[in-house]
C-alpha cells in the first residue's frame, strides 16, 4: 500500500510508511540492551562518536548507575540498508523492570517488532520470558539476538536452544552479536528492516496517536512521546486526549535524534514528540489516545489503564524543618513520574511526612535515592506496605495502605491483600532452595517446567506483602545470584491479618507497626525485637523493646543502659583529635531520629524487611 504523494516540505517530509520500522529492544537486566542501542546510534550516525556518552538512552544518573532504564525513550535512526534504500527506524526503548510492566506494554504497543536480546552466557532469564510474552501478546514480530558472543563463557548454541525450547521462538536466524565490539549490530538492523513489518494506517482517517511516554520540561511543559496510527498531527492543530478529555493546541511536533528536532507534521507510522504547553502531567497520560478536537475518533486505542501504586511507604525528613522541601521535591518528581502519588502523613514518632505510593520496590528505591541526591534531603523511610482491603462488620469496606489506618480489630469482618503470580527461573540445582524460601513467604507452588537442561521455571502464587519482605534479596543470595524473578498481579485474596505494634520504653512507635499474617506474627515479632536490639544503640537508660498484638505482648528484648563511654587517654597530643572524634559522634547522632528521648537509627524502621526466616 502507498501513502498519497508526499507534499513538498522544505525538509523532513512525512515518510512513506513502508519505509518505517518501529521497534523496541527487550532484554533481561544487564544483557546489553543499552550498549546495543548506543552502537545503533553510532553506526547510523544519529549521534557523532565524539558526542557519544556511554548509553545515551539511559539518561538519568541513577539509570546509568544501576544499568536499568526507568523512563522510556525514543530515537529516530536513518539507516541505509543493504538494498540501497534509506529506512526510518524508530527505536523505542522500554523500561527494563517488572515494576514498570504497564509502561513496557505501552511502548511495545507503539511498535511492530522487537529485538529480543539474550546474553550468550546467561541465557534466557525471567525478564526475558516476561518481556517476550508481552511482545507475543502484542502480536509483535520477535527478532532474537544473542549478545555478548565475545565473552569466554558465551554458548550461543545453548542459548539458541533455550530461546526455541523455552520461548517457542524460532532462533535459527538469531543474530549473533557483541554490542561491546560492534559485531553483528549492522546485521541486527538488516534483520529489523527485513523481518519487522512496516506500520499500516489510514492517512485519510482522523488523527489517532498513542501516547507511550511523557516527560516534563521546565520551559515547554509536558512533552508527550507519541506514535501516529492514523491520520497526521501538525503544529497548530486542535487536539483532544480521549481518557482525560483534554482539548488543547499543538505547539510543536518533532522527532528525537536524540535531541528534539521540530518537524511540520508526523504522519502514519511515525514516532515523535508532541508539545501542547500543558503544564499538568496528570492531563497527559501514558496509554491515552490523541485525536483531533472535533469530529475525531471516538474509538480509543486499546490497553489504556490508570496506573496504580502497589507499594506504599512513609517518607519523613530526619530534620522536621525539611518538610516543605520534601513536599516541593515530591511535587517536582511527580512532574516526570505521574505514577508517583503521595499524601501527607503524620506520625507520633516521626512527625510530619508523606505516605508515598510506588509501582514497586525498585521504583521506591529510585525515588528515595533521587529525593536524597537531587534535592539534598536526609530522609527516613518506614517499612513498605501494600494496599489492604478491609471489610467491616457494618458492611462497608475501605482500602488502607498504612498500618496506622487499620481499624479496631473488633470492627473488622475480614481483610484481603493483593496476590501475585511469581515466575522464578533458576538452574535445577537450586530448585530446593527456591522451594524452602517459598515456604517462609506464604508462596503457594503452582507448577514447574524445564525450559532447558539448565533452566527450570517455577510458578508461585504469593501475597505481594511477602514479596516485599526481602524475598528478592533472599532469592538471589540462596541461589548464588542465579535465580531471576518476574511477577504479575492476580488480584485480592482473603487473608488472616493482624497489626503488630512495636513498643520502645513502653510506648508504641507507630512508624514501626506493620500488618502481618496471623500465623507469622509471633515469629516475626520475636525476630524483629531481636533485630532491633542489635540496631538501637545503648542509651543513657535501659530501653525495653516489645512486640504486641492488640495490647498483648508477644516478644520482649532489652537494650541495656550504657555504662561506659569515655575517652580515657587524653594528653597533649590527644586533645584536638579527641575533640574532633566527639564532634563526629555527635554528627552521627544527628542522623538518628529521636523517638521520645530514644535515639533510633534509620535502619530500625526498615528492620522488618531484613528479618531472616
Amino acid at each position, binding site marked *: 500500500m502507498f501513502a498519497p504523494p508526499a507534499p513538498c516540505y522544505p525538509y523532513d517530509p512525512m515518510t512513506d510508511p513502508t519505509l518505517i520500522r518501529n521497534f523496541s529492544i527487550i532484554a533481561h537486566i544487564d544483557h546489553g540492551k543499552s550498549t546495543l542501542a548506543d552502537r545503533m546510534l553510532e553506526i547510523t550516525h544519529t549521534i557523532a562518536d565524539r558526542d557519544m556518552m556511554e548509553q545515551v538512552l539511559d539518561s538519568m544518573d541513577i539509570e546509568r548507575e544501576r544499568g536499568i532504564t526507568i523512563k522510556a525513550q525514543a530515537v529516530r535512526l536513518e539507516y541505509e540498508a543493504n538494498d540501497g534504500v534509506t529506512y526510518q527506524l524508530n527505536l523505542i526503548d522500554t523500561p527494563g523492570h517488572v515494576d514498570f510492566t504497564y509502561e513496557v506494554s505501552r511502548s511495545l504497543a507503539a511498535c511492530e517488532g522487537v529485538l529480543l536480546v539474550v546474553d550468550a552466557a546467561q541465557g534466557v532469564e525471567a525478564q526475558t520470558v516476561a518481556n517476550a510474552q508481552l511482545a507475543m501478546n502484542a502480536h509483535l514480530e520477535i527478532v532474537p539476538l544473542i549478545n555478548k558472543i565475545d565473552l569466554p563463557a558465551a554458548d550461543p548454541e545453548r542459548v539458541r536452544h533455550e530461546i526455541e525450547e523455552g520461548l517457542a521462538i524460532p532462533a535459527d536466524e538469531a543474530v549473533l552479536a557483541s554490542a561491546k565490539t560492534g559485531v553483528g549490530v549492522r546485521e541486527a538492523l538488516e534483520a529489523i528492516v527485513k523481518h519487522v513489518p512496516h506500520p499500516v494506517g489510514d492517512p485519510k482517517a482522523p488523527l489517532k496517536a498513542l501516547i507511550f511516554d511523557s516527560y516534563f520540561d521546565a520551559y515547554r511543559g509536558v512533552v508527550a512521546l507519541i506514535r501516529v496510527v492514523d491520520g497526521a498531527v501538525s503544529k497548530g492543530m486542535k487536539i483532544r486526549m480521549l481518557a482525560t478529555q483534554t482539548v488543547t493546541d499543538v505547539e510543536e511536533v518533532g522527532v528525537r535524534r536524540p535531541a528534539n528536532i521540530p518537524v511540520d507534521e508526523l504522519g502514519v507510522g511515525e514516532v515523535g514528540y508532541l508539545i501542547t504547553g500543558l503544564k499538568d502531567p496528570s492531563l497527559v497520560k501514558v496509554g491515552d489516545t490523541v485525536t483531533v478536537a472535533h469530529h475525531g475518533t471516538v474509538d480509543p486505542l486499546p490497553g489504556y489503564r490508570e496506573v496504580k501504586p502497589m507499594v506504599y511507604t512513609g517518607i519523613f525528613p530526619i530534620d522536621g524543618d525539611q518538610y516543605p522541601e520534601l513536599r516541593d521535591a515530591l511535587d517536582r518528581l511527580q512532574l516526570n513520574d505521574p505514577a508517583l502519588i503521595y499524601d501527607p502523613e503524620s506520625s507520633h514518632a516521626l512527625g510530619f511526612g508523606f505516605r508515598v505510593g510506588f509501582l514497586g520496590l525498585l521504583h521506591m528505591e529510585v525515588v528515595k535515592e533521587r529525593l536524597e541526591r537531587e534535592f539534598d534531603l536526609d530522609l527516613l523511610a518506614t517499612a513498605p506496605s501494600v494496599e489492604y482491603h478491609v471489610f467491616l462488620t457494618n458492611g462497608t469496606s475501605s482500602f488502607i495502605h498504612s498500618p496506622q489506618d487499620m481499624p479496631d480489630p473488633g470492627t473488622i469482618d475480614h481483610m484481603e491483600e493483593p496476590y501475585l503470580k511469581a515466575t522464578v527461573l533458576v538452574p535445577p540445582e537450586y530448585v530446593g532452595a527456591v522451594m524452602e524460601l517459598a515456604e517462609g513467604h506464604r508462596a503457594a507452588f503452582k507448577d514447574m517446567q524445564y525450559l532447558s537442561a539448565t533452566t527450570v521455571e517455577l510458578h508461585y502464587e504469593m501475597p505481594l506483602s511477602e514479596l516485599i519482605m526481602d524475598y528478592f534479596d533472599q532469592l538471589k543470595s540462596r541461589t548464588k545470584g542465579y535465580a531471576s524473578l518476574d511477577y504479575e498481579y492476580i488480584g485480592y485474596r482473603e487473608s488472616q491479618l493482624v497489626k503488630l505494634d512495636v513498643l520502645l520504653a513502653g510506648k508504641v512507635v507507630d512508624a514501626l507497626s506493620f500488618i502481618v499474617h496471623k500465623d507469622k506474627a509471633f515469629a516475626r515479632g520475636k525476630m524483629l525485637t531481636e533485630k532491633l536490639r542489635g540496631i538501637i544503640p545503648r542509651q543513657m537508660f535501659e530501653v525495653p523493646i516489645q512486640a504486641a498484638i492488640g495490647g498483648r505482648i508477644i516478644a520482649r528484648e532489652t537494650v541495656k543502659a550504657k555504662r*561506659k*563511654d569515655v*575517652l580515657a587517654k*587524653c594528653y597533649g*597530643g590527644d586533645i584536638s583529635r579527641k575533640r574532633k572524634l566527639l564532634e563526629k559522634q555527635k554528627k552521627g547522632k544527628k542522623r538518628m531520629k529521636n523517638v521520645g528521648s530514644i535515639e533510633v537509627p534509620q535502619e530500625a524502621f526498615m528492620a522488618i524487611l531484613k528479618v531472616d526466616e
Partner: protein
Amino acid sequence: MSSSGDIPRLPAHLYVHVPLCRSKCAYCDFYSLPLADVAEDVSSIAGSLASQARAWLARDVGPQLLKSLYVGGGTPTVLGSDLAGLVALLTTWFPLAPGAEVTVEANPESLDAPLAAALAEAGVTRVSLGVQSLDDGVLAFLERSHDAATARAAAKAVRDAGLALSVDLICGIPGQSAQSWIDTLNGALALRPEHVSVYPLAIEAGTPLSAAVAIGDVPEPDPDTAADMMLLAQHVLGQAGLARYEVANYALPGAESRHNTAYWTGAPYLGIGPGAHGMLDAATAAAVGFMPARGENVARLRYSVACDLREGLTPMPRLDVEVLTAAETRREDVMLGLRLTRGVTDDEAEAAGVTGALETLEAAGLVELVDSSWRTTERGWLLGNEVFSAVWAGE
C-alpha cells in the same frame, strides 16, 4: 593562665616525643617506628630532637623556667644512655624552675638499673613505666615485648635510683579475667608507685588489634566489663591511698602529674619531635609568627609537628595548626577541666556559656555542683564522652 610579663614567653611545659619503640604493640596508634625500621642511629635521632628544641629558643619570644619536662613516646628508653644526654641537654637550654617535674616514659624491657641511675643523674625526677599488666598471658595478647618479671625488675630499678614511679595499666582486655585484673592491681601496688594510670583498652583504627576485631579473631572489648574493672581499680587503688584525680589517673596526695595537669588546665606547652603536639596562647603564637592571616578572634593555637622520622628531622619542621576562638577556648577548658575529679568552678562554666548544658547533664545524673564547682559523678566519669561532647557543643 598564660605567661606574665611584657613580652610573650615560651610555655613553661615542654614535651619531647621520641617516636621509637623496640617493636609495635598490637593496640597502639601513637606515632612511633620500630627500631629495626630506622636507618639512623639513636644518637643522631637524639641530637636531631635536641636541635628541634633548640630552634624554638631562636624565635622572638622570651624564655621561661620550665615547670615540667616530659619525654614521651614511643619508648624514650630505647635511646639508652643517649636519653640521659638528651635530658641533660634540654635542661641546659630550657632551665628548670625549682622543684620542676622531669618525667620520662619507659618500657620495662629497655630500662635497667644503670639507665635508671643515669637518668636520675641527668635530672629526671619521675619515670612513667608501661607495665600494662602483670599477667604474662595478657602481655602476650597485647604483643608487649616484656613479661611481668621484667616489669617488676624495671620498677625496682626506678625505686632504687630514687625516682618517683608511675605505672600504666590496661583493663577491659578481651580474655582478661577479673582475677587477672585484681592480681595486676595488687601486684602494681606492691611496686610502691606514687602514681598509677588505668586505661580501658580502646580499639584504635589502623592497629593490628582493630584488624583482628574486624575479622572476628578477637571479640570487641565489652564496655560493661571495662566499667566494672575501672570501678574496681578506683576501689583498690583508693584503699592504698591513691586517689583518682582524673579520668584515668590516680596518685598519692601531692604526687599528681604536674605536666599532665597542665594539659587539663589550659596551660600552654611546647611539643617537640615527630607527631608531638603543642599549644600556645594567642600572644605567643603571634610573636613566633604562627598566627594565621584570618587571625582575628584567635585565643589559642594548637599545633602538631608534621614530620616523618624516615625523611630525616630538620630543626624547624612543618607544623599543622588549628586555632580556637576565645569562646571555643573557654569551652575547651571546661571540657578538659571536667576530666579532673575536682572539676571546674561555676564561674568558669558561666564564662564559657555552658551552665545550661551542665544543668541538663546534672538532671541526667552525670555532673553535680558541689561547693561552687561542677564535677562529674561516678556515672559521669564512666560516661565522660556524654559530658565532654555536650560541653564542647555548648548545648
